[in-house]
């Protein structure tokens, strides 16, 4: 093998006062996929832009195919294919027009051009859609078109910035297949992602967190370091699993404990023995078994090794929520819920019911209809047809009463960044109609329960991510709602912050709050008691994550992942639809 395609030598990059990247040293090799893995804001995009010669570092050097990224950026543009986030497509141009433009830009003409088009349209499966506007393509098809545009003149290095985020798992898998074909031709690929499960598919991984390179090398090297330290507690009583989780967390030597479907996953500190089922009081049928470590386990272990901890024990106390009236098996109930925008049906006859104190997830790619369903349930969007009931109340008949029983936290946190923590809490207390003593008690309780007191006077916008998340959650539950809606609450956050957040959610479910979550992260879905899989506006399955995986089990695939299950369901759904048509 020849030398590296890219050499990154002690790169530091700042934006104003913020340091986006600090002292990064790494190599990117040809003929393999290098994963650039890390949570949002870790500096992935900045590093990619530096390699593409689109940004200048404050110090350090990057050499790409022998060219300096600052002085010879033009030469780099000739040998690198770059697909930015959102794919860099012109949505008002057709597939063919986008390809033509990129062929012109890359000086590919005549026979070479027609051959490239034929090859790429076959490769991406876009041949039937050449006359379709790029804006009218699905997320997966856009991603393939974006990739095709960068491949018209085969590059030596392909930079893909979060190519798979929010894309359905089938398209994601196809993209990986395509990228592996490219790698076989000797192209070097840098693939950035916030999905930690993707790291395991890469030949090499650069793990970024908070602007620093935590680790680089083969993903196996990272997981090998914690081999023998990962366990699963099986055979738990579903009702008691959250108590077991709390016990596990409190044990010395446990560096990570989290719910995974019906089971609890444990990562032990170096040299610490795994607790027995008895020690965890996990029940008579429970057993602790060793499992193969995942990349995420290694990441968490690395972060903990840096002395990073998070507050995972605190139980936030909302105002004690009274047990709401109505059927405890259908605290949230959607029946044939449909929403059309013009001729487009965003949500098509979705039905499901959520039990009291259950954590229910809506899992699906971007544009599948998760958020639309959510907004209809919360009364933020009128329903085209069907019914939505919260604690037995119809949103159409008693909107105010139904809304008083729900708390809503959106992906963007909906905080006022220029108001202090105290002011945010007081504002939301006022918005929920709390006044006088109730209000003071609610605000005080939230500050105490979420450990926000030291930050009471700081502006919400300046809080660290984890505290921002706590504050947003505090603002959503201050009025003691019986139902909590979380719209992509931990997409792209680092695993520690995510764990902390979910410990609060688990605690709330333990207190009887019903929780609904949307997500496009497979592993986030595994924290839920049950998930509904949404695809193309249709709910194609509702079951516990374990049952879904069980259904996908085949002799070829003895231990399917939730993603495998999802893909099988999509394939079956598409087949059924074709048969019906």
């Amino acid at each position: 093998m020849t030398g590296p395609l890219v050499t990154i030598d002690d790169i530091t990059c700042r934006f104003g006062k913020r340091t986006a990247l600090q002292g990064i040293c790494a190599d990117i090799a040809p003929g393999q996929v290098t994963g650039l893995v890390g949570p949002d804001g870790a500096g992935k995009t900045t590093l990619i832009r530096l390699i593409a010669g689109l940004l200048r570092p404050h110090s350090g050097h990057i050499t790409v195919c022998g060219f300096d990224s600052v002085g010879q950026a033009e030469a780099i543009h000739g040998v690198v294919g770059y697909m930015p986030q959102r794919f860099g497509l012109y949505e008002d141009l057709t597939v063919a027009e986008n390809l033509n433009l990129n062929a012109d830009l890359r000086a590919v003409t005549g026979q070479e051009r027609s051959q490239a088009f034929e090859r790429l349209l076959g490769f991406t499966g876009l041949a039937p859609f050449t006359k379709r506007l790029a804006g009218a393509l699905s997320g997966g098809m856009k991603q393939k078109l974006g990739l095709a545009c960068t491949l018209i003149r085969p590059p030596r290095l392909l930079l893909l910035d979060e190519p798979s985020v929010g894309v359905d798992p089938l398209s994601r898998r196809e993209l990986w297949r395509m990228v592996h074909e490219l790698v076989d031709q000797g192209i070097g690929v840098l693939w950035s992602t916030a999905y930690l499960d993707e790291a395991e598919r890469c030949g090499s991984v650069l793990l970024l967190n908070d602007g620093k390179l935590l680790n680089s090398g083969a993903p196996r090297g990272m997981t090998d370091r914690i081999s023998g330290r990962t366990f699963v507690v099986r055979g738990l009583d579903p009702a008691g699993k959250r108590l077991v989780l709390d016990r596990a967390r409190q044990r010395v030597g446990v560096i990570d404990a989290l719910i995974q479907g019906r089971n609890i996953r444990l990562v032990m500190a170096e040299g610490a023995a795994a607790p027995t089922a008895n020690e965890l009081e996990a029940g008579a049928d429970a057993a602790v078994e060793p499992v193969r470590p995942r990349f995420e386990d290694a990441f968490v272990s690395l972060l903990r090794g840096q002395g990073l901890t998070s507050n995972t024990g605190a139980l936030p106390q909302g105002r004690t929520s009274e047990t709401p009236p109505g059927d405890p098996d259908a605290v949230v109930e959607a029946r044939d819920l449909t929403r059309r925008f013009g001729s487009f049906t965003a949500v098509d006859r979705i039905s499901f019911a959520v039990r009291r104190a259950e954590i229910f997830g809506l899992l699906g790619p971007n544009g599948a209809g998760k958020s639309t369903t959510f907004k209809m349930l919360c009364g933020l969007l009128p329903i085209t047809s069907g019914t939505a009931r919260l604690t037995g109340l119809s949103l159409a008949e008693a909107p105010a009463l139904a809304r008083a029983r729900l708390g809503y936290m959106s992906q963007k946190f909906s905080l006022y960044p220029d108001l202090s923590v105290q002011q945010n809490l007081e504002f939301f207390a006022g918005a929920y109609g709390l006044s006088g003593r109730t209000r003071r008690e609610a605000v005080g309780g939230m500050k105490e329960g979420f450990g926000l007191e030291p930050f009471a006077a700081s502006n919400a916008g300046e809080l660290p991510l984890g505290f921002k998340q706590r504050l947003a959650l505090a603002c959503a539950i201050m009025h003691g709602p019986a139902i909590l809606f979380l719209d992509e609450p931990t997409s792209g956050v680092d695993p520690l912050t995510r764990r902390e957040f979910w410990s609060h959610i688990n605690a709330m479910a333990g207190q009887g709050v019903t929780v609904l979550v949307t997500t496009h992260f497979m592993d986030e879905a595994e924290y839920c008691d049950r998930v509904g899989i949404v695809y193309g506006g249709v709910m194609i399955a509702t079951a516990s994550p374990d049952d879904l995986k069980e259904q996908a089990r085949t002799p070829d695939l003895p231990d399917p992942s939730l993603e495998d299950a999802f893909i099988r369901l999509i394939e079956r759904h598409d087949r059924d639809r074709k048969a019906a048509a």
Partner: protein
Amino acid sequence: MMTQGAARRLRLKGLVVKETLQILRDPSSLLIAFVLPVLLLLLFGYGVSLDANHIRIALVVENPTPEAERFIASFANSSYFEVDVMRHRATAEEDLVAGRMDGVVVLRADFAARLGQWDMAPIQLLLDGTEANTAHIVRGYAEGVWLAWARQEAMSRGLPIAIPVVAEPRIWFNPELRSRNFLVPGLIAINMTLIGTLLTSLVVAREWERGTMEALISTQTGLPELLAGKLIPYFVLGMTAMALSVAMAVFQFGVPIRGSLMVLFGASAIFLVGALAMGLLISTVTRNQFVAGQVAIVSGFLPAFMLSGFVFEIGSMPGWIQVLTHAVAARYFVSTLQTVFLAGDIWSVILPDLGAMTLIALVFLAATSVRTRKRLD
């Protein structure tokens, strides 16, 4: 592998085709380029008039002598006024206060008698100062009528009175003083500013917002192609809109063109390049459609409207604002437009205008190429 130059031309072609397709598919581009100009032309052509017509005047005649009748007649004969003759000053004053009258002319009982006795048969004018423009016109006209009448009377009576020098205006270029004749050509400058600056600033900022610019600059596309790829399609769009405006001015509003079409289109081309470069500069600096739109309106559209002499006379602005107007390209363009339409190819006016517009265009082009970098920082 093709040569550098051929690759450049191919990239430019690709960008121009792309931009043209986008313009044709984007209703908002066509709206700003064609519907808005037509709307503005109709509005200013028909709706806004700076001419004094049908000004309501109360003539208070306390003693209806023949001399007073003759005075009244010269007022009533004018197409500018609608005259209401009254006997009592109090009623007229009431009407003025209530806004039913734009002005009051009072002829006192001894008005005619005082002519020639070291006196000039004084009249009194009451004007509504809140309508300064109308007040001006009434005053000027009333003075004129009064002087003409006084001379006539003096001559017919053989009175040796000293009549002050009377200026007899002869109005060149726009003898009927139709404001439409100078508003409509001036409006072309406004329309071109809208298309050149506002539209262009929006479309480039849009590329930044949607992330397509990032994909573009990561290819070998050079700055000249990038800029020309934006300038050429919008230049064609702007010139088309300009031709439409000229056609409307001539055929719809009957504005004469006394100069040559070549000068008209040449000057427009120079102005348009400057406006486009300004739009590009704005969007390159802001990279955000909302901010770009605001900046384009404040720094492009409003100055073109207020500081170009299109509606508001530059000569009557405070000194420092007059200085400021020299930086507004529209000022020179409005002057050229009004000259070419109403006077002809007056090179002594047009050449300095063209020179100034060229200079401003070059400054913006230079600033744009300096500011546009193939980098994100």
